[in-house]
């Protein structure tokens, strides 16, 4: 017997069942997501415009006259007077005192649209776009693949470690990866190069492919040589790279597994893998996704040191050579590309995040 426990006495108004049930999940929030995406896109377009315009403005505010300096360097390099076209492009990018700013600005955009960044000073008279175009695939191939590989490896291992913090696996690997994370990549590259290439002779000492094999993507031997030359730098990059992902994933995972919804998932008697993936890792993954997008944006910058150590013909090596040779057109083109790549990667991160975390989809 219960005091005042007559259920009718406190009956609620909520019950009579409304007719009609939804037969399946409906895409009711798709519209909100699209609107969010459009707003973000607008923001990124504006940022891109600002970055490109800054690239135009900065040389014009530099003390002295960068365009004249560049043309003088060019003359020193080649021993002959620059052609009128070269003068024109140099002035498009670095300022022409005789033309009005607006006209220069429009010319600048026109050249950008044609991927015309002028000619390289150190590799005269190769156009900058050609130099960049040659280096780009190597970097995308090497750094892109290794970034993704390191991310997948680190995130998966981190999720497993954070699932059972304090387990033997965790106790051994957590300090090990902290140590490896602190190892500078170029140092490890040097050690790997010395050990595996000089001492053991398993891998070539440098370069991106075997120069004795004809350069053609249809040639199996060429592709194999690319893999052989890329193996050591790739392994080094993955080995250094995955530790950071592992560490951050593990730490987020440790706090996520103690969330109530993970406990409830366990109480529901769901299979262990489902609790791990759909409840714990699925939520712990979110910060790492942002991290991956940032890292992908950074790919175009190449990994300067690693590419240097392995003389890998990528953007990092190109940028390094341009810097030491004061090759401003090349530097400017590479920097512009890095900026745009970071922006695109951030846009992708934002969009993916909206798909992964419904809480960010809120309108308003």
């Amino acid at each position, binding site marked *: 017997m*219960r005091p005042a426990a007559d*259920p009718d006495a*406190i009956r609620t108004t909520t019950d009579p069942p409304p007719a009609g*049930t939804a037969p399946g999940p409906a895409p009711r929030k798709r519209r909100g997501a699209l609107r969010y995406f459009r707003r973000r896109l607008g923001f990124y377009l504006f940022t891109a415009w600002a970055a490109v315009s800054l690239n135009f403005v900065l040389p014009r505010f530099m003390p002295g006259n960068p365009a004249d300096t560049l043309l003088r360097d060019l003359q020193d390099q080649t021993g002959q007077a620059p052609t009128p076209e070269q003068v024109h492009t140099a002035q498009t990018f670095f300022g022409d005192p005789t033309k009005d700013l607006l006209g220069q600005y429009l010319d600048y955009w026109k050249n950008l649209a044609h991927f015309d960044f002028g000619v390289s000073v150190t590799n005269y008279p190769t156009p900058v776009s050609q130099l960049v175009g040659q280096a780009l695939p190597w970097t995308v191939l090497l750094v892109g693949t290794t970034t993704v590989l390191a991310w997948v490896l680190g995130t998966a291992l981190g999720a497993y470690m954070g699932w059972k913090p304090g387990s033997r696996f965790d106790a051994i690997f957590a300090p090990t990866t902290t140590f490896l994370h602190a190892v500078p990549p170029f140092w490890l590259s040097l050690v790997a190069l010395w050990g595996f290439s000089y001492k053991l002779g398993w891998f070539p000492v440098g370069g991106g492919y075997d120069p004795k094999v004809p350069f053609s993507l249809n040639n199996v031997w060429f592709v194999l040589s690319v893999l052989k030359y890329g193996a050591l730098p790739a392994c080094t990059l993955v080995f250094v790279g995955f530790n950071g992902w592992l560490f951050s994933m593990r730490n987020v995972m440790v706090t996520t597994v103690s969330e109530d*919804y993970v406990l409830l998932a366990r109480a529901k008697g769901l*299979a262990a893998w489902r609790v791990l993936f759909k*409840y714990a890792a699925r939520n712990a993954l979110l910060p790492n996704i942002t991290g991956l997008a940032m890292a992908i944006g950074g790919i175009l910058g190449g990994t300067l040191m690693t590419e240097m150590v392995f003389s890998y013909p990528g953007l990092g090596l190109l940028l390094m050579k341009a810097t030491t040779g004061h090759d401003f057109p090349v530097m400017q083109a590479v920097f512009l590309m890095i900026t745009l790549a970071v922006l695109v990667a951030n846009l992708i991160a934002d969009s993916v995040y909206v798909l992964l975390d419904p809480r960010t989809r809120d309108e308003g």
Partner: protein
Amino acid sequence: MTDPALLQVDGLSVDYLTPQGSARACSDISFTLRRGEILGVAGESGSGKSTLITALTRLQRPPAVTSAGRIVYHPADGEPVDLVAQSERALRRRRWRQLAIVMQSAMDCLNPVMRLGAQFTDVLRTHDPSLDRAAAWQRAGELVRMVGIAPDRLPAYPHELSGGMRQRSLIALALACDPDLVVMDEPTTAVDVVMQRQILAQVLRLRERFGFAVVFVTHDLSLLLELADRIAIMYAGRIVEIGSSADLYHRPKHPYTKGLRDSFPPLHAPLRELSGIPGSPPDLRDPLPGCAFGPRCPRAHAACEQAVPPLRTVEAQDVACVLYDPQNPEATAHA
């Protein structure tokens, strides 16, 4: 109350192992829960209520360990099993079909990146693999409708629901696989009093309909008086008094029960003077040799410090207090 027993808890103890030594959060807990019965568990913060919940459902995580006792579960068909001795694998088959839980913070209990409906269908289809996707979704719709949520809210994400809806959907979720026992850990603390009444009314009505038993844990004794068939009062990890709601309210035996009762105003009776309980709960890492409530008890005397008093049947309820020890000269059995 002639229903068969559903759960027999016998001498259950739970320890938290800390570097400073172990703390016994639940000590020698024994009670029997009958089919369809609502047992309320009341106590202050830190009295071991929530620890008891995770121990009953075998959901505790290190550093908590069940150090002694048995939790014997009597299925509707089949042999009784001791849940403490079951493997995680065997438990998983029982979870939700026989043993469901409603947890305290509805805010944090739903997976923020899954649609509400999906959090129903995954458990439905786990325990009934023959159920196809559409049928599971249909069933989820029926379940949420029972607690007054329109089925067209199923595709919503948890953050799009109000606090009350979330809490009610957790109750609907607990009933998804028609369990024998639903354990509820303060399911109404995060909602306002109006929603609290609605939820309690729904729990009672659904209990009438489906006949599940409930262990309902709260710090709010007044709430239990309206909801529970029987009430257990916990103090410092022990049950100090257990009996029917009416007996406990009208004829509390333990000084602590009296203190709890007198610290909130009665709803349907003339007002009486309210009084609190001075002091704070003891440190579980350093238990007293005698009654843990002694230092705060208005009727404490020398006998209280000698040994932990066992539960004794006094009239209609069981109480752990030396005042009811027939050998105690200070005993005032009919205080």
